[in-house]
């Protein structure tokens, strides 16, 4: 089974701080990581390959720096990696991103001389947070899709996917090729070892640019994006509420009960 995993390099959103003066995101010094959901997509992809044979290829669209993320993937089981990078791709919304990535799927298939049976994405990127790139790639490629996967198993030319729902899960099957977006797995992604890190370091990561993909510029980048970010702000949710500090529990509980009653909250 040949598997393509789409990975995005993202800032570690746990480390993001808001500048108290300008109220903007402080990105400086925030470490870049492989989008956490994508590490699950890669792990399930590598396990399927180990079980069935074939190849796992990772791609990422982004600046040169994203090669670091691709190297991390090479050290935890990916066989090959490609960076998709061009100034013409900058500012793409999800429609343009998914268009470029689906064109890259075809370009990588040609380079590798194979066809992908399965395309994996994370459920969503923790920076953009849209969860739209996976389904949109499926639409561009005219493939079936299953989103919110909790596990993927292969059986008789099909995959069976455990899909997260509100109060449990669904078991869904589909034929291949298909696109699946992954939320979580019953197991954790593997760690790199010194040996796999060394091997990843040596491996060359080719860059595919606008000229290597057969894309129409009208659908790429800022100009090819129907949605426009008109403004951003950091939410201010602070209230000047009552705060009981150093009040004994019996008293505090009674005061709260009274406050709820006087404000007719109950």
């Amino acid at each position, binding site marked *: 089974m040949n598997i393509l995993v789409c990975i995005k390099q993202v800032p570690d959103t746990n480390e993001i701080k808001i500048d108290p003066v300008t109220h903007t995101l402080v990105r400086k010094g925030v470490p870049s990581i492989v989008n956490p959901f994508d590490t699950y997509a890669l792990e399930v992809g590598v396990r399927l390959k180990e079980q069935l044979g074939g190849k796992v290829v990772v791609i990422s669209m982004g600046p040169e720096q994203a090669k670091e993320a691709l190297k991390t993937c090479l050290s935890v089981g990916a066989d090959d990696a490609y960076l998709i990078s061009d100034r013409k791709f900058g500012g793409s919304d999800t429609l343009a991103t998914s268009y470029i990535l689906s064109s890259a799927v075809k370009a990588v298939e040609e380079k590798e001389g194979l066809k992908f049976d399965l395309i994996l994405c994370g459920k969503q990127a923790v920076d953009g947070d849209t969860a739209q790139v996976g*389904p*949109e790639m499926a639409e561009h490629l005219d493939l079936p899709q299953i989103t919110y996967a909790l596990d993927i198993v292969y059986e008789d030319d099909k995959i069976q996917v455990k899909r997260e*729902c509100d109060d449990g899960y*669904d078991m869904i099957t589909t034929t291949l090729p298909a696109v699946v977006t992954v939320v979580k797995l019953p197991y954790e992604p593997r760690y790199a070892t010194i040996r796999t890190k060394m091997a990843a370091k040596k491996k060359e990561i080719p860059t595919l640019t606008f000229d290597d993909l057969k894309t129409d510029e009208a659908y790429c980048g800022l100009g090819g994006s129907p*949605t426009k970010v008109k403004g951003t702000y*950091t939410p201010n949710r602070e*209230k000047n*509420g009552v705060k009981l500090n150093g009040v004994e529990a019996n008293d505090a509980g009674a005061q709260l009960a009274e406050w*709820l009653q006087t404000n007719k909250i*109950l």
Partner: protein
Amino acid sequence: MANKTDYKNIWVYIETECGQAKPVGHELLNPARKLADEKQCQLIAVVIGKDVEEVAKTAISYGADSAILVDGPEYEYYTTDAFAGAMEQLIGKYKPETVIIGATNNGRDMGPRVSCNLKTGLTADCTDLAIDEETGNIAWTRPTFGGNLMATIMCPDHRPQMGTVRPGVFKKGAFDEGKTGEIVKEDIHIAESDIRTKLIERVKEVAEAVNLEEAEIIITGGRGVGSAEGFKTLQELADELDATVGCSRAVVDAGWMPHAYQVGQSGKTVAPKLYIACGVSGAIQHVAGMSGSDYIVAINKDEDAPIFDVADFGIVGNLFEVLPVLTEQIKKQRA
């Protein structure tokens, strides 16, 4: 690019499963009604499902001017191909200016498939909707970077302008049983061979349906509750107040409660009348899911916990000492 003037009216997609509407569709009719009045256009509910004519009538009672109904056995359970296929055909025929979809797992599965097919823009997982005065476009507001940054997005040149909107953010409007409106039935069917995924089993892991989004009072426990057992103390107060118990992600990660009870960025967004957070530190990802509550109460041992910043009433103290007192006091008030 579409000729924008051909596109009219606001659609709200009413998601159904097994003949039942998900609450988010009815919630969205409320803000959409205001947008439609401001734009002086029609608000149309789009219902796709099996045996869902009642759902279309209900949508009119919740404020839609009329409804478009697609009914058939292939729509009993959600599949991407059937639902996105039907939606694409409807949009192609009627050309709505705006399409609003509830950001449930299924809504976020179908939405991008449809917008991509139509080569238009889709704003993800919004928490606010308005009309841009200057252009008349919808200004969609949404959290990004895990709730740290809010962004306002527009789709100026493409139609329809589409967005998914988070469940639990808007409250349902008034229900007017006598309100009537036209229900247009569209005979759209998707052949079984064109539905490429098959549902083979549905497993419920939560005993009863958890309806956090609909709850009037939510009592949430965080890691400070200490164990699954510890939630009994919260449940006792919940029983007294007819409230629903929720939890933070730390609690889900520890295995004390299932994910269906989680409030926050990667869980449910809620806006109850009263939200009582017990042993929750108040991480931004948690606050993003509950800051719309009318009244917020926080009980935490740590006087510096950020949850106090968003609380109307805070108690620095041990939840296991404060909650039983509160429960007793409320029992007394009611006796």
